């Protein structure tokens, strides 16, 4: 009974938590993640409630994590591969519109207003109720009413000029209270009879102890407040001048309905209008464009991402500036993986053959010593190679081996494509041959000695028996491992990125591609490179491509090693 109770309670709890997160997700617009969590919810309920779902209970924690961290990202990668999510297009259309509507532009001949804050105190502590005293460039004083919310996240406040020390705004009476000792000081403002005390002014150092309160309590309101006066216009706190002073400014874009020609008909549409030029904002190519009324030239203001279909994939094939570096990276990736396997396998096999003798003393010591390059974490050894060995001016290869010992000119390791590749192969062979050596040793040991004896009796030389006996018999167990190594090197981000970073760069390429870049490092630079903007959409498209290739290779490999049969057991 207790067990059942615990079960139902936990089901209820999990449902509650997941339900809450689903609603959160849908509110935030992450529909995909929300759907996945819904599926999870259904699955969890089935697993916990239904006795037939017993096996699934074991899988629950792992499955949750798998779903969130592996399945969802796969889905997400597919999704953004079909969108144009990139630098300059990082918002949804609605977000872009909101950003534009929030933009404040300072007017051409700006007028500056200084201000002081007057706060209502309660129990000797300041409250969030305040008004402002403004001083214009002509020295005249104005009162600005307490900012009221007008639309979500925005506030308005009206300000009017003081006449004889008082003014009435929207039916509220304001008057200034001056100090008796020094009439030039306004110590309070009386609002409908209640005194708001002098609290803070950016030019008065004595009020700085109140700065913290001002920033935390008033700052967010004031930075979104529009101060309105019918004659002067609108004042804002801008990013240029911060909270130092108010500036005449206005919202750069507003919404308005205008007649627009669409499909040959005139329709009334709600469009964004640039308040300075008066021109409507054009929208095409997944972005908003300003039009200069005199020249007709269009400049892009902000872009938004949305479904663009196969644009990313087709640009890989059609856009010459993207395609040709991509193609060279693609070809090089295959070359790199294949040659890496060849080199590491050759070295590993030779060493395995030399070591493969039971009578050899110190055999285990040799093997242990030779495994060390594999045991050292890759990123450490690669950095050492990059900085200490292959550095063009300071590296010991150029400086000491070539310079001091042999008096040869230095080699431009990372500037010349050929030598960069040589360096890459050297390092990768150093890193990879122990693995090959170990598996070759294992495979060699499975070949019975009688075969060699028989062959030598038949008059075969060592070289001949290697090619006819050893090599074919090695290939059977090793082929899947070699293919797996090919797949590993195909995606060997660490070596490429940490040693050469893809350099030397391919000239005339708008995407950051290098001559030693492999697909995955190219993708990484596209997504996180930062230098020429981040093109997440294109990066995701290439990720999918890599996945397709790897999946094919792995499928071939699994077929070879018979893993699929194990599934059916």
């Amino acid at each position, binding site marked *: 009974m207790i067990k059942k109770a615990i079960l139902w309670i936990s089901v209820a709890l999990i449902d509650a938590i997941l339900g809450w997160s689903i609603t959160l997700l849908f509110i935030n617009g992450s529909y995909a993640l929300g759907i996945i969590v819904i599926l999870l919810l259904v699955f969890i309920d089935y697993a916990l409630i239904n006795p037939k779902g*017993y096996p699934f209970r074991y899988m629950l924690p792992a499955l949750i994590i798998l779903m969130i961290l592996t399945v969802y990202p796969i889905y997400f990668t597919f999704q953004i591969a079909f969108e144009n999510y990139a630098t300059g297009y990082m918002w949804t259309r609605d977000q872009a519109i909101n950003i534009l509507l929030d933009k404040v532009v300072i007017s051409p001949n700006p007028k500056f207003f200084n201000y002081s804050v007057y706060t209502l105190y309660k129990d000797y502590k300041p409250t969030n109720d305040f008004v402002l005293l403004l001083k214009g460039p002509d020295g005249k004083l104005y009162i600005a009413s307490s900012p009221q919310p007008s639309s979500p996240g925005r506030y308005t406040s009206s300000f009017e000029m003081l006449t004889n020390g008082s003014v009435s705004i929207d039916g509220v009476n304001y008057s200034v209270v001056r100090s008796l000792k020094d009439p030039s000081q306004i110590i309070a403002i009386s609002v409908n009879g209640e005194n708001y005390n002098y609290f803070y002014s950016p030019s008065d150092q004595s009020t700085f102890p109140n700065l913290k309160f001002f920033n935390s309590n008033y700052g967010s309101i004031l930075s979104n407040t529009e101060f309105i006066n019918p004659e002067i216009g609108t004042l804002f706190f801008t990013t240029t001048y911060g909270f130092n002073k108010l500036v005449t400014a206005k919202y750069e874009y507003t919404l308005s309905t205008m007649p627009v020609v669409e499909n040959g008909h005139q329709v009334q549409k709600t469009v964004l209008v640039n308040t300075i030029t008066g021109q409507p904002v054009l929208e095409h190519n997944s972005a908003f464009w300003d039009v200069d009324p005199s020249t007709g030239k269009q400049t892009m203001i902000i872009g938004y991402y949305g479904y663009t279909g196969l644009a990313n994939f087709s640009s890989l094939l059609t856009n010459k500036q993207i395609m040709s570096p991509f193609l060279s990276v693609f070809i090089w990736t295959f070359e790199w993986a294949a040659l890496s396997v060849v080199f590491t396998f050759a070295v590993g096999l030779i060493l395995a053959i030399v070591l493969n003798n039971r009578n050899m003393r110190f055999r285990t010591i040799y093997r242990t010593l030779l495994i060390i390059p594999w045991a050292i974490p890759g990123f450490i050894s690669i950095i050492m190679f990059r900085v200490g060995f292959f550095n063009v001016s300071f590296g010991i290869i150029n400086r000491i081996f070539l310079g001091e010992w042999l008096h040869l000119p230095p080699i431009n390791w990372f500037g010349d494509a050929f030598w960069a590749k040589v360096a890459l192969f050297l390092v990768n062979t150093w890193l990879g041959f122990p693995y090959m050596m170990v598996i070759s040793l294992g495979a060699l040991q499975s070949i019975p000695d009688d075969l060699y004896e028989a062959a030598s009796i038949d008059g075969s030389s060592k070289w001949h028996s290697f090619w006819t006996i050893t090599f074919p018999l090695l290939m059977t167990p090793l082929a899947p491992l070699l293919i797996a190594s090919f797949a590993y090197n195909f995606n060997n981000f660490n070596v490429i990125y940490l040693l050469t970073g893809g350099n030397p760069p391919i000239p005339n390429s708008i995407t950051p591609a290098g001559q030693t870049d492999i697909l995955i490092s190219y993708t990484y630079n596209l997504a996180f490179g930062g230098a020429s903007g981040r093109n997440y959409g294109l990066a995701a498209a290439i990720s999918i491509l890599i996945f397709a290739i790897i999946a094919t290779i792995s499928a071939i490999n699994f077929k070879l090693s018979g893993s699929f049969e194990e599934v059916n057991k």
Partner: protein
Amino acid sequence: MFKVHPIRHIIIIAVIIVVLFPVLWIFTTSIRRDNSSISPNLFSNQTTWQNYIDLIFEKPNVPLLYNDIANIYSLGSPYNKMNDKEILNVLNGDFNAYENYFKSTYRMSDSITSNASWISVNFIPKAKSLAIENVKENSNADLRYISIVSSDLAAKFNSLDQNYKMAGILDLLNSLKSSPDQDTIRIVGQYFPEIPQSWDNYKNSMSKAASALSNVPGNVSEILLESGVDNQMAKDLVSAYEETLNSLKNGTFTYGNWFAPIYLRRINMDTINLSSTIGSTSAAKLQNIKSMVFSTVQNVNSAFSSYDRSLSDAISKAQSSKTLLLSTLQSSLTSLSNNYNQLQNKLNTLTASSVSYLSAMSYDASQISIFSNNIVPTAMALDNMVSLVKSVLHQSKLSTQSGIFYDVSSYISQAKDWIAISSKYSIFDPITEQVQKILDDLNYIQNNQSVIYANLNSNAILNVKTSLPFVLLKLQSGLSMSIPVLQNYDTNAQKYKEASEQIPDVRKQLEEVSSEIGPIQEKINSINDKISIASLYFETLKSAKKIDEEAKNINSFKNADVFLNELNKYYATLQNSNIYSQLPPMPSSSRYDQFFNTQKLIDTVNLTLQTGNNLNKFTDEYSYYISNLKNRSKDYVNINVLGFPFSVNEINSINNLYQNQYVSIIGPNLGIISRRTNELADLPYFKEISGKLNSINDTSYYITQIWMQKYIPPLMRWLLNSIIVSGTAAVITVFLSALMAYPFSRLRFRGRKYGLIGILLIQMFPTMMAMVALYLLLNFIGKFLPFLGLNTLGGLTFLYIGGGIAFNSWLIKGFFDTIPMELEEAAMVDGATRYQTFWRIILPLSAPVLAVTMILGFIGNYGDYILASIVMTGLNNYTFAVGLQTFSTGAYSSNWGLMTTAALIGMIPILVLFLSLQKFIVGGLTQGSVKG
């Protein structure tokens, strides 16, 4: 028993040395003291464990303590959140550390000072005398060399013509103009006796003038005193006369330097001004004295002028000799060179223009070939039409009728013009052929106008007549468009021909000129050589004699120094001469190394004593500031914590002191001392003090370690981050994977097969691919669960877990499959639930494999760079992989010692883990490869 051939061992050992060399290099570089990124040595014998101490214990040295204190006083983070008691605690800790450092510094500075003074008192006098002996011994070889060279030069010199001798003495004469000296005058006196004569004359006149004027200053001051004048002007007048007298006495008088500043401005003006204040008799006396001095000096001046004249005469004589030897040759060389340059320019222009013509031609030719695509169909069409006409005419009986079928004369002339040009060039032959065919066809039509006209009623000919205009139109447009191109080609071809015909001629002329230049240049060179011999002879006359004299006098350190200086100057003169290569080889200069090294030792010891002094003073001042701060710290901190900005000026003073004293002077000096003592300690003749020198070296190094600016990154923090993240992720991953693998292995349920395939598929899409998605995902999650967001350890752990589950589940399932089911069935018969069989049987049995998987997972996560670099953006949150990168870029990329130390510290745990798991790894791999 087959003995293994030793060659196997040798090969393996060689490979091991090559393969493990980088590891060895990493270790040795991490313990080096010098800056290995610029040192020419691959290894160094100056070792220290300082890098390890710095990185592991992170004990801040003085500059880092200073940063901390400055941070405290300006209430930077994390101090802005602490209360005053806590801040005072930290501050006191810092002050205590400061005290310790001061004590160490005093101790170490005393050590180097005492060592240095011991050396100075007990060793240096001995070393000095040994060095002097060394110089004396070695000087013989040099003296011998000098005498050989001198006699060689003298012999060659004497065989020279007078003009050469004159030309050779020119340099010496010029040097006399700027700085006259006795020896040189004697030397040139052999050829120009007027010079030493006039010089002696000049010297005599000066000493005579000096004795004549010896009483003047005394007289003048008497006169002035009598007149009662004792002001500044009077003093100035007397001193002006004194200066004049002194310069005449010691022979440094020069008229140019005397006349305006001393005579005009002082003697003259002062006399005039003073004369107005004293009596007329005294004024007259002063006047007289002034005139007398002036005329005496004039005598000296005229003596000098005659010397100067004789010198100038000699110079012009020498100059004219030189000119005589060289002038004609040099002028003809100049004119030949100009000629050569002109011809070279012409050749270049011709070559360039012919290249441009060629390229224009090829451009035109390609245009024509485009046109040819046009022509062929036209020709074929025309051909067909004409054959149609011919076939009709062949059958027809009608002969002629007056009339014109179609006038193609203009086309004929066009085609003829075309062929006229194109036939000149064989590359247009194919087209020419076509156009020729057209021409033939057109001619046929033109010649048979009336016959064809007669047969107009034939359908074929009517058809031809209708379509002929179109063909002809096309032909005409093609021809008219291409004729200009053809003509252009023609022009360019002709110009090209002209240019290329000229080129061989110009080349030949160039050769002729250069062949003339050669001999002349040689003649000039040989004359210059002979002049150089003469001038070297003269130059070395003086120094050789001086060196001989000095060599006899080497009995003190200073004299030895002077001797060696002169010797160096002599050798330098030889090396600068043009005929250096004709001289016998110089003896090596390293024979005097003992002397120079002793000099170096003396300098270094003095520098050490001075630096020790400076260091003490510097430390005194610094600790004075610190003790002030200590006394005032309570108040300072309180005021700051209360929120009132308060600037502590002592901080600035400390920084200025540090920059001005340590960074500019003491620090570099300590470095110099270290370097020099290191070099000197190895020398055999300093063996006795090598211990002390090494001690000075080490101590200086440790002093700099206390005081120099260091950047110590939070390596331990990074290591801890890596270990926490990788370890936690590995443990959790293995548990979750084991849980997940269990039903797939043991139970049969719907969706098992597709589940397994799904896991396989997911495995193929490594999380790295989805780095974009994961980045945004973490960003999103971080808003609600801050401990799992970006830049948190939890977030990264979360990602690692996700990345490992698929792969590990598959592996563990494979292992579970090898455990026989009978065990569980037996247990279940005994009443255990499924879960209990999992918990009590399967897990314990697979514990070793799970442990190995965990450790392998740990090693794998530890080595991940790409995810960690994306997720972790704050310096303190870096994992070790990302943190190590910061060593290799930017300003710290040349501090190899620190970088290799960090690498080694991070590498050792993994290395140890891996090697101790070797059996499992190797065994597992080989097991997997051997089936059955």
